[in-house]
């Protein structure tokens, strides 16, 4: 097996550390939403896809039904299936390795891996495994830190934790707003969910905005 290049290692580590540190925000948000420290840590270990974790605890915090939380979180993670399709032929794994690969198939591992494309197939695999396991390690570590921190703080609003959650979503959305069309679609989704808030049970206006994605994406 070819050696890991310094460049791939640097890319993987820098992404793993920055994204991992974001786990503090999740840990704090989850505890503020009423999940225990144990449940919060299990979220990061078992669900391990940031936006979906934030969504699940966010909907619960907003008083939404469990089914709304689960549906929103799952819909947000469907992109991981498409990442897996991209990674499957490049990793060529089976058995337990495939199970492990699936769990760490997320935005960061896939994007770092594909970015190594010009340096050969080995660099792609290294990028995937290093980034995926690095993010897994730091994300879980920092989740625990955030959860314990929030538990000792008390009232979430007094420490701004209730604003940290929408800010976290904004931070995840921002890099996706690459052109006018996408910004427009995001704007329509904002207006649509605002209008739906008083009309639908809490939590459901979020899933309802998928209609906007379907309509906007139907034609190219």
């Amino acid at each position, binding site marked *: 097996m070819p050696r890991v290049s310094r460049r791939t290692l640097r890319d993987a580590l820098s992404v793993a550390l920055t994204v991992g540190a974001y786990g503090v925000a999740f840990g704090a948000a989850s505890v503020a939403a009423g999940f225990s420290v144990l449940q919060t840590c299990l979220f990061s270990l078992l669900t391990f896809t940031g936006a979906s974790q934030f969504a699940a605890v966010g909907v619960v915090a907003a008083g939404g039904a469990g089914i709304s*939380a689960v549906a929103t979180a799952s819909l947000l993670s469907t992109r991981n299936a498409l990442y897996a399709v991209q990674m499957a032929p490049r990793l060529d794994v089976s058995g337990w390795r495939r199970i492990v*690969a699936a769990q760490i198939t997320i935005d960061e591992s896939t994007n770092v891996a594909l970015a190594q494309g010009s340096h050969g197939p080995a660099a792609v695999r290294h990028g995937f495994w290093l980034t995926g396991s690095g993010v897994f390690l730091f994300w879980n570590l920092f989740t625990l830190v955030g959860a314990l921190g929030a538990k000792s703080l008390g009232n979430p609003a007094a420490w701004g934790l209730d604003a940290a959650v929408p800010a976290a979503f904004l931070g995840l959305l921002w890099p996706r707003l690459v052109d006018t069309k996408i910004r427009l679609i995001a704007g329509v989704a904002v207006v649509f969910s605002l209008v739906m*808030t008083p009309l639908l049970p809490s939590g459901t206006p*979020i899933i309802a*905005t*998928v209609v906007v994605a379907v309509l906007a994406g139907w034609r190219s």
Partner: protein
Amino acid sequence: MTWSVLLVTSALCFAIKLVGYYVPARWLANERLQRINSLVPVVLLSALIVSQALAVKTHVVLDHRMAGVTAAVAALLAKAPFPVVVLCAAVTSALVYRLH
């Protein structure tokens, strides 16, 4: 409810990841499906921002949270890194909350 949300979300999110390793690539190669799928995070994240920053149950409420999100927008425009963006929002929101 918290346990069922945790366990069902985890199971579904893992199954979704795993599916991609088993289904033939051409099943998910449909252009329309890919286009819609790439927009799903955009609309869901937008709606999540609204629900977290402006909604209390089924009411639209303008309060300290929106002040925090406005600070986050400013931080993003200034190209601040993620943790700084979240911190700006939290500090601003906490200040407005305490001053009120």
